[in-house]
């Protein structure tokens, strides 16, 4: 805990915009849960999963059902939503299987159609009003950060997102499972020739990616509110994140998510009119200077 005196001593800019910066970090971490799965799935399977935003939204709705409607605990809500996300990923794998041999255009189209269907199913079950999940009771308070009060829940989202990023990074970079995954991204046929079932690796990554998206929907629900349209909104932001960071790169998804989170929050606070252009401008500049993204290798 810092004292207000420290806060007053902070540089004026930071002092004035602390809340926006923190909000941006929270949004960035939410985007990371979306972007990392999108990026891994694309890196491994060459499939751009346009249904990823719908799974984010549905994950949030499923948790809303469990926590708000059924009155279960947060932990149960998260568990059910994550399980739902993983099953959705496995189902997606099954649905994509018959057209794997066609180009990635057709596969992107299929996920696009799925997104349309899932979004409408969500309005059938949960209507088109804004729904929200109250944050867990023990996080329903404010914490003093550098002399200013800030919701504890958002700090928790940041912490969880950061921990998630570290775990995913370590698993992919430092474990044997991760080594297989990276090898499959580089050369699928070779990994297959080594006797590893690449199809199963792909399914696992799909399930992991969609589970993460559903998880993002749950922890995002107290901040964003769930409603039709949120799916497309987060999908577009997550796509911008992975284009900036570089397709298939986990550190890229992380840095991209932080950048876009700040553009979305600090950018809107500082120059409300220019924020959408900044979002777009950031992507255009990266594409013009480094077409493979900040951390991309291709």
């Amino acid at each position, binding site marked *: 805990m810092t004292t207000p005196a420290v806060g007053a001593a902070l540089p004026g800019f930071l002092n004035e915009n602390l809340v926006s910066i923190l909000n941006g970090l929270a949004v960035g971490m939410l985007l990371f849960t979306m972007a990392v799965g999108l990026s891994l799935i694309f890196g491994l399977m060459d499939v*751009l999963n346009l249904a990823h935003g719908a799974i984010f939204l549905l994950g949030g709705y499923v948790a809303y059902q469990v926590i708000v409607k059924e009155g279960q605990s947060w932990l149960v809500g998260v568990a059910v939503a994550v399980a739902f996300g993983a099953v959705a990923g496995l189902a997606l794998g099954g649905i994509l299987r018959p057209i794997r041999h*066609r180009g990635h*255009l057709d596969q*992107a189209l299929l996920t*696009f*159609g*799925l997104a*349309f269907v899932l979004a409408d199913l969500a309005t059938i079950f949960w209507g088109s009003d804004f729904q929200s999940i109250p944050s867990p009771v023990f996080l329903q308070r404010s914490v003093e950060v550098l002399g200013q009060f800030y919701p504890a829940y958002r700090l928790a989202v940041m912490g969880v997102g950061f921990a998630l990023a570290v775990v995913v990074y370590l698993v992919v970079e430092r474990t044997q499972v991760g080594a297989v995954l990276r090898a499959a991204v580089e050369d699928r046929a070779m990994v297959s020739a080594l006797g590893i079932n690449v199809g199963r690796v792909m399914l696992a990554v799909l399930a992991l990616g969609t589970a993460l998206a559903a998880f993002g929907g749950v922890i995002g629900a107290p901040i964003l509110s769930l409603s039709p349209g949120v799916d497309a909104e987060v999908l577009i932001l997550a796509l911008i994140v992975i*284009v900036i960071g570089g397709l298939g790169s986990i550190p890229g998804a992380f840095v991209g998510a932080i950048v876009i989170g700040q553009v979305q929050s600090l950018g809107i606070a500082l120059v409300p009119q220019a924020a959408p252009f900044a979002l*777009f401008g950031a992507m255009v500049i990266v594409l013009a200077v480094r077409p493979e993204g900040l951390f991309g290798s291709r």
Partner: protein
Amino acid sequence: MRALAPGPARPLVQLAVVFLLVVAPLLLGDFRLFLLTEILIFGLFAASLDLLVGYTGLLSLGHAAYLGVGSYATALIAIHLTDNVFAGLAAGVASSCIVAAATGWLAVRTRGVYFLMLTLAFAQLLFTLAITWDSLTHGANGLPTPKPTLGPGDSGGALDGGTAFYYYALVAFLFGLGLLRAVVASPFGRALVGIRENESRMRSLGYATSRYKLAAFCLAGAVAGFAGSLTVQQSSFMSPSGVSFEVSALALIAVIIGGRATLVGAVLGSAFVFVIRDELSSAFNEHWRLVLGLVFIGVVYLLPRGISGLSARVGGLLTRRTERAAGEPA
């Protein structure tokens, strides 16, 4: 059209369709005629998207941007300058062509996912701009626009009424579709297909593929802007929802359901989309998106060539049977 009616029947089918379109006002009530006008205009827009998606192999998720630029330009010209119908069309085509050239310049340098992303981002940006640029667009409230007039002698009556506007839209539609068909049949159009099939080979053959793609992008944008002008002239209203992601998505769905790289398929697909949305939506309890999405998924799975591919297959079977019958000794 090739896919629609194979063999010597093709010109006959075309004539019959044009004839039906010409007599449609005699057969349809006001509401249906309005719907048919909408379908023709949206069909032209979807056909312009087909030039990118079907012929050139560029999956654009933001084609509504160019429709919307055309609509806004036409609306603004009609409000502030002149309600002449041709001035509106010219403004729509010119502005969307310029915006397509500026954005396409960057977009055609990228491929696959990046192209999809950029087009989506451009469209979202324009959507945001349409909402926030209040002094120009009146934000989400939208712009009511005066009815278009034909010339100095016309005080707004010549194109008023469903039938008159329908014929105007029909002529514009046939002109736009004819233009697109001439383009895809030309050596330029063949080169676009070559780029879709194998871009690096086309490049090594000496084609400046980026330039071809940019030209296709501008042309598709200009035709979309043309359709945008017609849209706003029909509805006398423009709001940001005309540039929304859903518009881009519906056009893409129309192209895929109708059949890629056929142009006519895009129009058939548009008819399908509008009938599901406007005519049958009460039957589906307003959940037309669900129905449309399921049909779309089914088409991607089972009919990669769409409805028009299906009719070609049926037509192929028929002609084969007649040929066999004709070939058999009496």
